[in-house]
Structure formats: structure tokens, C-alpha cells
């Protein structure tokens, strides 16, 4: 009998340093990530668990640190646009707009043509919709509801195709330029976006019906990861997560940029700051974005889509080929980049996840001396350490899903 016991219970045949011989009664440390299905992008958590309950969580980001700042310092101001695309790769247009606005602020370009402003608002809002669609869909998928995810991704596909038509790329658009956008809207853009919005709203309703009225989904989200208003402010939370806590703060309303001041929309605000509120805020924001888009389509004026400023506008093709000044200007523009006066500036826009800011230090050449990105995901992610502790392992999934941590942005 003793032999049998040794064989089956004791693991004595294995050279095992962890073997203490008895029943373990202490905490267990497990490693989650960096390649784990629930870790959006890539992140690692060292969990100390007591059964299913998380006692302590040590979150390690940085698995997608791609050196945005180092790369930007080596690139001209225009060449940074592709890098900004890959910061928050779910809503690249907003990053584009943010970077362009930061450079424009340094250059002292205050007046943008109205059509340009409308275009920038429209592409930002489309990007915001794709961001929230992905966030809500992916969280639903991780909770086991696969169908809503696919419905939402289907809608995202329509928007990608539209943006592809506009910019030439499905995901990484690099559409915005300093002082304007790469090209005017494609023909029938407004008609197409109206059509997509008309088709999108029923799908949103469908997904809402599948999720909101689902008791399991509701219970998994409600009360999980809640955050108080004061904590949220002290942690520098922003975006939908902050608004879910009950703080009425949206850069588009409080510090209006572009022509957001002229557009009518509401800022949804939650009460308890739990995952359910974050989810509902995101759902409502998609509706508001759709409203903004409809207003833009109705109001968009004709006109130029670049500022008339030789510092940042490339010469016409004919001028480049036929005049020596034009050619030199083109050459300097491409090789040296846009010359920006020395100084520093911080600009922020309302990104998909919150206040997305760019802090640029310019040294007077065509390349930024320092390009710092204030990544909302990074500040938001920081709160997870606090919200996970004391919850179950399963709660990590909705918490992470609703923080919507985007690796590219968080790790830069």
C-alpha cells in the first residue's frame, strides 16, 4: 500500500524541486502572457492567486516597445505619420490628426481651411467607430459570445473599405499631412458613408440586443473593475473609462479642436465606472460619432484641403518639373523635411482610448528633437493593477477587454 501511495500521490519518481510532500496551502504564482488569449496585444501579468482569486497582480507591459520616439527622432516630421498610424492601430486616423495638429501648433498654423477641418473630423470619427467596434467585439468574443464579435467586425470591414478608398490602405492610412490631408475626399464618399451608417445602426442594435439583454454577459460585466471618480482622476484616466466613472470630460467638448465646437453631440457619462458602464459608454459613443458624421456630411463645404503655406505644402508637379525654385523647394521638402521653428508644444486630441497627446521639442531642423506620445492606454492600464486585485481570474478578461489596452500605443 505504501508503495502505491508513493507511486500515485508522492511523485517521488520525479526529481522535483517544488515537491514539498504535503498538500500545498500557500499562494500560487502563475504567469499570464505575454502570449495569452485574453491579453490584448501583448502583456504579461504575474498573478499571485489564492484558488481562483487574485491576491496580487504585477503587470508588465513593454512587449511591444517598438521605439516610436527613437524612430521619430530619426525621421522628418512627415515621415513620422506612418509611425503614428501604428501607435493606436485601431484608430490610426486620430493619431494622424493629433500629430499633424502638434506640428501645426509649433509652426504657428492656426487657421485651417473649413473643408479640411470637416475632413479631419470625419476621418477621426470613422476611426473612433472602428476602435469601439473592435473593443466591444473583442471583449464579447473573449467572454464567449462569438457572434456579436463577427457582426461588429463585419461593420468594421465596411469602414475599412471606405477608408481604403480614401487613403489607399486598409488599416495604416497615413492620410493626414502637416497642414492638410493627402488628397481630397474620394467621389461619392459622403453618399457611401451615409449608406454605411444606415447599415451600421441596425447591426449595432442587433449586437446590443444580443449582449445587453443577455443575463450572463450583463453579470460578467456589471460591478467588475469599478473605479471611483477620485481615483480615476488621480490616476490620470481618460477617455471612455474616465467617462464611465462619471467624470464629464471629453477633449472634443472641453477643449474643442478643429470644428468640434460647431457640431452637436452628447458625451455619454456612466455612474459606477465598472466594465458595464465602459461598455455602454463605448456603445453610445459610436452612435454619437455616427451623428457627428451625418452632420459633417450635411455641412461640409467646398474648398481647399491644404493650408496655403509654402513651408509645408509641396509645390505643384508642373512647378517642380519646370522651375528651378520649385524643384529646390520640392527637394528640400523631401530631404530636409518641413522646417519647424525651435520650441516645444503639447497638443492633445480625443483618441479612441482617451486623451492622446503629442509633446514635441523642435530644434529648428526638419526632424523632431523629441517626439513624446502621451498614450492614454498606458495611463489606463496602470489602473488594472488596482482593479484586478481581489477579483477572480475570470474577471481579468472583461477588465482587460474594457480597458482596451492597445499594445502599440501603450508600449510605444
Amino acid at each position, binding site marked *: 500500500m505504501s508503495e502505491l501511495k508513493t507511486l500515485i500521490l508522492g511523485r517521488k519518481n520525479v526529481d522535483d524541486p517544488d515537491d514539498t510532500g504535503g498538500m500545498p496551502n500557500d499562494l500560487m504564482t502563475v504567469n499570464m502572457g*505575454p*502570449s*495569452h*488569449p485574453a491579453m490584448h*496585444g*501583448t502583456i504579461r501579468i504575474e498573478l499571485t492567486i489564492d484558488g481562483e482569486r487574485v491576491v496580487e497582480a504585477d503587470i508588465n507591459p*513593454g*512587449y*511591444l*516597445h*517598438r*521605439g516610436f520616439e*527613437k*524612430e521619430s527622432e530619426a525621421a522628418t516630421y512627415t515621415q513620422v505619420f*506612418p*509611425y503614428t498610424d*501604428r501607435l493606436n*492601430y*485601431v484608430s490610426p486616423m486620430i493619431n494622424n490628426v493629433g500629430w499633424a495638429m502638434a506640428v501645426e501648433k509649433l509652426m504657428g498654423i492656426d487657421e485651417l481651411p473649413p473643408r479640411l477641418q470637416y475632413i479631419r473630423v470625419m476621418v477621426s470619427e470613422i476611426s473612433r467607430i472602428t476602435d469601439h467596434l*473592435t473593443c466591444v467585439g*473583442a471583449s464579447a468574443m473573449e467572454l464567449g459570445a462569438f457572434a456579436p464579435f*463577427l457582426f461588429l*467586425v*463585419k461593420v*468594421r*470591414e465596411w469602414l*475599412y473599405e471606405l477608408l481604403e478608398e480614401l487613403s489607399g490602405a*486598409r*488599416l*495604416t492610412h497615413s492620410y493626414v499631412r502637416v497642414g492638410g490631408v493627402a488628397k481630397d475626399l474620394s467621389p461619392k464618399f459622403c453618399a457611401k458613408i451615409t449608406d454605411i451608417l444606415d447599415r451600421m445602426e441596425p447591426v449595432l442594435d442587433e449586437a446590443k440586443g444580443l449582449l445587453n439583454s443577455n443575463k450572463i454577459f450583463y453579470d460578467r460585466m456589471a460591478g467588475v473593475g469599478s473605479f471611483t471618480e477620485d481615483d480615476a482622476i488621480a490616476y490620470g484616466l481618460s477617455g471612455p473609462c474616465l467617462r464611465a466613472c462619471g467624470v464629464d470630460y471629453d477633449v472634443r467638448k472641453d477643449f474643442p479642436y478643429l470644428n468640434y465646437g460647431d457640431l452637436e453631440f452628447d458625451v455619454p457619462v456612466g455612474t459606477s465606472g465598472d466594465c458595464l458602464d465602459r461598455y455602454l459608454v463605448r456603445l453610445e459613443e459610436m452612435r454619437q460619432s455616427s451623428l457627428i458624421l451625418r452632420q459633417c456630411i450635411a455641412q461640409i463645404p467646398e474648398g481647399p484641403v491644404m493650408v496655403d503655406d509654402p513651408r509645408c505644402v509641396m509645390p505643384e508637379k508642373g512647378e517642380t518639373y519646370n522651375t528651378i525654385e520649385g524643384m529646390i523647394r520640392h527637394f528640400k521638402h523631401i530631404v530636409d523635411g518641413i522646417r519647424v521653428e525651435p520650441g516645444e508644444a503639447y497638443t492633445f486630441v480625443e483618441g479612441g482610448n482617451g486623451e492622446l497627446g503629442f509633446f514635441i521639442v523642435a530644434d529648428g531642423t526638419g526632424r523632431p528633437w523629441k517626439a513624446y506620445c502621451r498614450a492614454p492606454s498606458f495611463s489606463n492600464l496602470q489602473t488594472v493593477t488596482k482593479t484586478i486585485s481581489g477579483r477572480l481570474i475570470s474577471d481579468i478578461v472583461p477588465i482587460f477587454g474594457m480597458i482596451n489596452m492597445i*499594445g*502599440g500605443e501603450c508600449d510605444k
Partner: protein
Amino acid sequence: MGLEITTTKLEDLANWGRKFSFFTYPFITACCGMEFMSVAAPKYDIARFGAEFPRFSPRQSDLMMVVGTITEKQAPALKRVYDQLAEPKYVIAFGVCASTGGFYQNYSVVPGIDQIIPVDVYIPGCPPRPEQVLDGIILLQKKVGEGRTVNQMRARREAMKDKQRQSEGV
């Protein structure tokens, strides 16, 4: 002679099964993950190729899709997951970052995952279009069907060496 024919046929049968049953391990790190979602989504539907089961345990998956940039910090994890995959295993470098490091040439980014693990199919693009990904999967199916993936070739080489050693020994 007869035995050899049988083993070849058996190998063909196995390869036929393998090529229509890719259980993927999505090693998703970055932007390409968004396009990976699109590939799995209704319009492109990777499931048509029998590759829809994402298995998050490396033991049960055959195809590792390295989707996105691999940084130096991530590299040990990638290598470890690759070592944990059960044979036969195939690797797709999804996107230009996984293939070469892309336009990130700096202190933190690995210049291509083939510095760390062998790769069967490279899919270019930043990120690649879903059509390109489907093309890559068809290419891999062809490779697997013909037994020309890195690991299959290596296994064959080793078998040949064994045989040689045996015949020399005799």
C-alpha cells in the same frame, strides 16, 4: 521496396490530412492582429481552409502565425512557444514586421523572426491584406501537401542520415 512505397503513401495521406487541418496558434502582438481578425471574420473567413480553430495551447496547434512585431523582450517567449509546439509544426510570418522587422530598425525590434525560429511562409504587407493572408495559407497548404516545410525537410534529412549510418554500420 514495397515498404518504401507504403511509407510514402502513408506520408502522403498524413500530409493530405495536415494541410486541411491547420489548428492555428495566433501569436498576436501588434497591428497585424486587426487584419488577423478580418481574416477570421465573415468576409474572408479563414475557416474555409479548415484553419478556424485558434488553439491557445501550443501542444494542440500545428500552425503558428506570428502576427506583428516581435521585440527583443518578446523573443524568448516566441522561441519558447515554438519549442512547445508539437511536431509537425509550421510558422507563418504574418506581416513585414515579423518577416524583417519592417521600418522599425532600432534597439528594441528583432529584425525578422527568422533570427529566432525557422519560417515557412512570409506574408509581406504592413499589415498584409486579408487576400494576401489567404494566399499565404494556400501556399503553406501546398508546401505541407508536398512535404516541403522546414520541419518536414529536416525530418526527412535526418531519416536519410539515419539510414546511411545504418547501411554504413552494416
